[in-house]
């Protein structure tokens, strides 16, 4: 890292880490204006907190930690605003359509998922990541939010339930639905070799 941890230079933080922080925020928020605001708030907060920065972690790690808190605060605030709560109040209802499409009346796969030939290699392929990002973006907002909290922020079900004021059963259903959606989307958007 080019920034010396001993020198407070917010302009350099912006130059060196601005794009990274922006991408990070955009990934979580999927809202460009909100992501820009988050970067600004993070850097302003970092400026105030600079004296407490120990230099034990890299500046990027430190800034990312601040950004994570800012994003969580925003999620918390949004959970209280009606326009960000899901149109379909009951996620169990909402997922019925996808389940009906993927499973037949007896609960068996209509089109059984097939194993990928070399799953490790997929993660090194640009094609895979483009499909993956596209599929993440295609998730319904509530599903995307819960999925991000769980899989990328490593929040526990209990934390998510508290944040978003939902029951743990609902939370599991939402995560299941998000994974089904992602899995199904990857299947159609990413070509893969199959074997077994």
């Amino acid at each position: 890292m080019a920034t010396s941890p001993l020198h407070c230079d917010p302009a350099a933080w912006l130059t060196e880490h601005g794009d990274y922080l922006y991408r990070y925020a955009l990934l979580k928020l999927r809202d460009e204006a909100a992501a820009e605001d988050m970067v600004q708030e993070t850097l302003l907060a970092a400026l105030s907190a600079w004296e407490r920065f120990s230099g034990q972690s890299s500046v990027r790690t430190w800034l990312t930690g601040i950004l994570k808190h800012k994003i969580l605060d925003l999620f918390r605030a949004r959970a209280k605003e009606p326009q960000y709560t899901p149109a379909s109040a009951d996620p169990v209802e909402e997922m019925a359509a996808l389940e009906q499409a993927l499973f037949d009346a007896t609960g068996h796969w209509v089109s059984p998922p097939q194993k990928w030939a070399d799953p490790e290699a997929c993660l090194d392929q640009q094609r895979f990541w483009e499909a993956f990002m596209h599929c993440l973006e295609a998730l319904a907002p509530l599903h995307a939010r819960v999925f991000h909290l769980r899989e990328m922020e490593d929040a526990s079900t209990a934390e998510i339930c508290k944040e978003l004021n939902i029951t743990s059963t609902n939370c599991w259903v939402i995560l299941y639905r998000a994974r089904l959606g992602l899995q199904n989307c990857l299947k159609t958007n990413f070509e893969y070799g199959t074997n077994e």
Partner: protein
Amino acid sequence: MLNCKDASHLQSQSYERPLSAAELIGLKLHLLICKGCRGFAQHLRMIHQACRRIDESQGVRANAPELPPDAKTRILKELASKQGKNS
């Protein structure tokens, strides 16, 4: 006997909570006989791993979004004004 819908839901939940012994036995038995659900299990693992590696993937990705220049200018101004107040 579990069907694929139940089994896939349990598979997903196993990422959030430890399954009960009964759930685990039911799921294992189902996976033994169901190729589709074994495929689903692999896809879930992939999705899980992809999420862990998403930050580094941003370098792999073409056209990764960048902070727009006008936002950079605005943020720089805010930082300078705050720094001015502090010193």
